[in-house]
């Protein structure tokens, strides 16, 4: 079962934000000036890139920077509404976060199939309350690579509440973290 070390998994998360920065740099206009990372991640693509020329130019620059060479105009105009959703197509943040959590889960879940970890209850993978180790360590690790506006105190509290709720699975908590906020 391919797994990553905790450090490598955190690097993957960091890389996701770096690639979001490359998307931002590929926006030809100045509409993104003054936006923080979360605002850009959530920004409407067709608002930032309204014309076909802007979209074509974004694709040329983004493909050159990232290697995602199958980007289509319809990805920008129809399929994906935000830059976060667009990037998730080629580099799903869910996967990076899941691999990070997997690297810190209890030994009995290490080396299993990814599907087994995905459907495991969080209380099995991290047998503690949200305020105790190891989950606190998980969140501290994420806070070290997330821009502050993407993991605010309120958002962390929301995640912790979900963690403490009965029956929450890894497949519930990971997508919630990946929504950013």
């Amino acid at each position, binding site marked *: *079962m*391919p*797994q*990553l070390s905790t450090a490598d998994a955190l690097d*993957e998360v960091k890389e996701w934000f770096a690639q979001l920065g490359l998307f931002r740099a590929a926006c*030809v*206009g*100045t*509409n993104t*000036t003054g*936006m923080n990372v*979360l*605002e*850009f991640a*959530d*920004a*409407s693509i067709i*608002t*930032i890139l*309204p*014309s076909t*020329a*802007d979209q*074509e*130019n974004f*694709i*040329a*620059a983004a*493909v*050159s920077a*990232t*290697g*995602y*060479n*199958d*980007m*289509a*105009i*319809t990805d920008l105009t129809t399929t994906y509404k935000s830059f976060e959703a667009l990037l*998730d*197509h*080629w*580099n*799903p943040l*869910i*996967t*990076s976060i*899941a*691999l990070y959590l997997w690297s810190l889960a209890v030994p009995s879940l290490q080396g299993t*199939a*990814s*599907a087994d970890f*995905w*459907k495991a209850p969080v209380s099995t993978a991290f047998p503690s309350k949200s305020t105790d180790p190891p989950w606190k360590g998980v969140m501290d690790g994420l806070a070290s690579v997330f821009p502050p506006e993407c993991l605010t105190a309120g958002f962390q509290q929301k995640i912790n509440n979900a963690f403490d709720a009965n029956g929450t699975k890894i*497949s519930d908590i*990971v*997508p919630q973290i990946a929504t950013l906020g």
Partner: protein
Amino acid sequence: MSAVVRSRILKVALALTVVMAPIRAVQGQEPLVSATTYVRYPSLTPVTAVVVNIGQFGTATYSAVETALKAPNWTCASPDFYKVAVVDKSLRVVRSLKIRAVNLPDRDKSGRPLTRCDGLGHPAVIDLILGSQVSTTDQIQVFIYADKQQTKQLFASDGKLSFTATSFPTFTATPQAAPGESLNNGATRDVGQLNVAFADQNLFGEDLVDIYAKSTDLFSTDAEDAKSAFGVTGGFQRGLFSRWYSPYHLEQTIQGNQMATNLSTATTLGFNTLPPWHWTASGLNNGVIDAPLPFEPAIAVQYVHRFEQLVTKKTPLLSENDFTVNPALSWSNISFPFVCKLFNHRKTTAEAPGTPAPVCLGAQLDLGLWYLPLDLTASKSERVDGYGDASILIPLSDFGFASTALSYVTKGDPMKFQLRITYADSVNAANNYARTRQWTFGIEALK
């Protein structure tokens, strides 16, 4: 453990994976397979492909790759381990589609294109580039196998995939009856006509440059039919710079009527791009003027040579050679934020991130030039005709009375309508570059 035992364990594991794997992605995630057509840059070659999403943790395809990586010789970059087929409603394979290549759209940490899958989300998608024609009505099923013989199936999609468009050659021939059609000799008569259209967006499947051909023709049962025509175009296109969208094309068209009593050839060179614009942020993003997007420049050069001309009462004799150079630029999305203070602009809701500031007064500009070196003026100098238009755009939301007095026009939502005032000094190339100047006023809906 012997090789035979290991092989049996692997077979059982593969079989279990197929049985247990859900067909659909989990709620809120992307579909596991999708259809796409895209244009590679800078070659500008069109591609029709099935995208398999293998990078979403917890999905059937992620697990399939996880399992496949244990199989000997498995590689996600080889078409041998996939099958794409057109199926009927009972998932019976009607025909298999050729997979021309597998594209892994991602890079490794050193920046080189990926050549293998790591099972950790890199690449997150793989493109199965099709080499067979597929229509928009075809229902497509996608399979992943652990072996080249395609006996150990790891994943099968639900067979409901379809394309909304493809890049394969198109050909249509539409017969029609045309009663009372005008003839070149001035008479009219009932004729039969055949409309023929052909287009191949990528003639040779080249990856370096896009070479294309297209033809639009109308053949008639009467050779004197004034509408009979043929036009065959061949050309190539490519981006000039790989990191900046800068496409150019060079194409040759031969056109005429059915009997070639009217016959000409046109050579066209075109180029368009966008200038870098971030450097304007301080000068063009302030309280007075906001122009966040650049103007769009383009240039078209055309040489026309007329071999034969059919002169009639409706079609005068034209010069044997025409040469035109037509640079143009279009600049939209210009606004003047300070006007909002003057108009006491009404805000309806809080702005979401990425939402542009409200526009209270906008502007749009188009400029161009026709340079005709073979067409001399009365003073024997080469002809140059400039043209352009300027528009002032005023959203109806600027006017407090718009939502009530103009409710029929605005449907109660003045935010979605604007007043456009345009002054145009235009030159009509289709009418011997005749010049007209006019003001126009109108209310238009915003998308």
